C-alpha cells in the first residue's frame, strides 16, 4: 500500500532543505545578485515553517500566516534596498563580484 501522507515533519524537512540550499548559495556565490536571490530562498524556507506551524499547531490563531505576511513585506523591502545597494556599488566599482569587495577589512 502506498502510504503517502504528509505531516508537520515533512514541511519542516522541506524548509530545512530549502534553507540549506539558500545558505549554500549565500555562502558560495560570487554574484551579489545571486546572493540576494539565495537570501530570498532562505526567507521562503522560514515562511514554510511559519505556515506549517500555523496549520498544525494553532490553526485558529493565524499567527503564522500573519507573521509570514510580515516576512514577505520585509523581504520585499530587503530585495529593493539590497538591489539598490548592488547597483550603487556596481556604479562605483563596475563589478558585482563579492570576492573583490573587501572594504570591511581594517
Amino acid at each position: 500500500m502506498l502510504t503517502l501522507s504528509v505531516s508537520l515533519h515533512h514541511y519542516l524537512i522541506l524548509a530545512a532543505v530549502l534553507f540549506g540550499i539558500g545558505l549554500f548559495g549565500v555562502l558560495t556565490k560570487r554574484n551579489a545578485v545571486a546572493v540576494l536571490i539565495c537570501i530570498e530562498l532562505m526567507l521562503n524556507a522560514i515562511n514554510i515553517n511559519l505556515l506549517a506551524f500555523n496549520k498544525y499547531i494553532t490553526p485558529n490563531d493565524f499567527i503564522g500566516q500573519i507573521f509570514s505576511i510580515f516576512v514577505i513585506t520585509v523581504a520585499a523591502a530587503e530585495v529593493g534596498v539590497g538591489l539598490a545597494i548592488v547597483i550603487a556599488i556596481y556604479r562605483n566599482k563596475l563589478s558585482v563580484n563579492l570576492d573583490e569587495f573587501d572594504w570591511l577589512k581594517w
Partner: protein
Amino acid sequence: MVEFAMHNAWLVPLLPALSFLIIIFLTKPWKKLSALVCVAGMVLSCVIATLAAYGVFTNHEFTEKPLVYSVRWFSMAGLNIDVGVQLDPTSAMMMFMVTLVASLIFIYATGYMEGDPGYSVFFSYLSLFGASMLLLVVSSNLLQMFVAWELVGLCSYLLIGFYSHKISAREAAKKAFITCRVADFGLLLGLLSLQIVFGTLNLTELAEKISHFEQYTTMGILTLIALLVFAGPIGKSGQFPLHVWLPDAMEGPTPVSALIHAATMVVAGVYLVGRTLFLFHEVPTAMELVAVTGGFTALFAASIAITQREIKRILAYSTVSQIGYMMLALGLGSLTASMFHLWTHAFFKALMFLCAGSVLHALHHKADVWEMGGLIKKMPITGWTFVVGGLAIAGVPPFAGFWSKDEILLAAFDTGHYVLFGMAALTAFMTAFYMWRLIFLALFGDEKPENHPHESPLNMTLPLIALAVLSAVGGLVGTPWAPFWQEWIFFGHPHHADPNYLIMIGSVVLALAGIYLAYNLYCADKTRAKAHALAERYRFFWTVSYNKYYIDEIYLWFNHTFIDGAARLFYLFDIYVVDGVFVNGIAAITRLSGEGLRVTQTGRLQNYALVFFLGVLAVAVVLAFTDPSTAAGLTGGVK
C-alpha cells in the same frame, strides 16, 4: 623675675625664631632694622637665659631632678611625642653660653657684613640658626632634639652656602648637609630603636628606663642602639671619618664659621652624647668607641692642621681636634670635663674665628697665612685678642683652655686610659705648635708691603675684647682649688679629683714647648728656611697631611663611582628593562597580536557569514544536545 625666666625658658628659642619671621616678612628691605631685630632677639633671649641659668645654679635640687615642662606634640595609638623644655645645670649652662656667644657674634656680624647685598637675609638666617640651636639645647625629648638638630643642619646649609653664586660655597653647603644626613640616618635609626624598645623619647623617662634596661632588651641591642645614636654626633661634630664637611664650611661668611664652630653646630653632637650619657654609660663598648673616636680625631685633625695654609682652615681643623677632646672626655664618662672644655672652647674659638674674620676683612679676603705678617702693629686689638685666644687654646695657665684641658687629661689618666692620655698629650703639644705657627706667621714677623691692613670698626672689636676677657677668665669657674663647675655639671655623682700637679705641670711644659718650637721655626728665623727644610725632609708626611690624608678624594671617588654609578644603572634599568622590556614589551605584544589577528579579517562578507553560521551551528548543537541546565549555565542564566 628669675622664676618667670625659669618657667618661660621656651622664650629663649622662640625670640630668635620670632626675629627670623619678622625679618623675613616685615623688615627685609631695611638692613639696619633687620640687624637690630636679630641682635635684639638674641640679646633678649640671652637675658632670659641668664636669669634662668641663675635660677638653676642657685638651687641644688636641679642637679638631681631637672625642671621639665612639656606639651603633647602629636599622638596616636602607640606613639606619643612631647615637646618641652628641660632645665638642668647642663642645659642652663649651654643656654647661657650659646646666647652669650651668639649675641657677641651677631653684634660682630653687623660690622662684618656691612655692604653685603644679602644683609637682611643673612641676619634672618642667623636668627633661625640661633633659634634652632637653642631649641636643641632646651629639648626635653629626643625627637624634638632631632628636629632642632636637623634645623641646625639646614641653617648651616643656608649660611655656608650664603655666597651661593660661588660654586665652592654651593658645593660646601651641600657637602655639609649630606655628610650630616648620612650620620643622621644612624641617629634616626637609634631614635627609632629607642622609641620602639622603650616606648618613649622623653629624656627623663628614658634615663629612668635605661637604668634597668634588662627589663626591655638585651645588652647587644642596647649596644647597637648606642652605636647608632653615636653616628649622629660623628657627623654633626665632625669626628673622623665624617669630619670632611667641617673645613669646607669655611666658605660661609666668617661670623657663620664662628657660630658653627664655637657655639652651636659642632658642639651639638657633644651635647647630644652628653644628654644621652645615661645610654652610653650602660654600654661600655660604646663608651670605649666614643673615647677612641674622640682621641683619634683629636690627634688626626691636629696632624692636618700643622701644614694647612689658609687661616680659617687651620682653625677649622683645630675645632675638629678640640671636639675630639670633648668626645674623649665623654667616652671616659666625664661629663664634667667635656662640658667644661665645651664651655671654654666656645669662648676662645669664637674669639679666634672672629679675629680671623677681622683679619680677612682687613686684607680683603686674602686667606693664606704665609702672605700675612706683622699684622699686630696695624691691628692691635685684633692681634692681641688673637694672642689671648692662642694662649687659651694652647693651655697656658691661667687662661681658660688650660683648666678644661687639664680636666680631660686628668680624667684619662685617672681612668687608666694611658694610650688615650698619651694621644691627648701629644695633641696638646701639636695644638700649641700649629696655633702659634699661625700667630707667628700672621701677626708677627715682617709686614708685607702689598697688604694695607686697618683695624676693624668698633662693633667688631668690642665683641673681640669681650670674648678675649671670657677666654682669659672663663676657666676660673672650674679650677681644682675652687671646683664650682664640678659641683654642678656632672653625670652620676659629682666627681672631685685632687689637683694632680704632675699632669698640670706636664701640660704646661708641652704647651710651652709647642709655642717655643713654633717661635723657633716661624718667628725667630725670618727666612723660615728651617721650616721649609723640615717640610722637604719629610716630604711624604707633609704631602699627606697637607692633602688631608686624601679622605675627600676617596669620598668623592666613592660617591662618583658607586652612588652615581648605581644611579645610572638603575635609571638605565628603568628605561630599558622596566619600560623597554615590560611596559613597551606588553604594548608591542598587544600590537603584534593585533597585526597577526587582523589577517583573519578578510573583509569578505561571505567569510564572515560562514564563520557566523559555524557559530550558530555550535550554539545550536550545544543547546540541542546538552542538558538544559548546562545550557543555562553556559548562557549565564540564573536560578
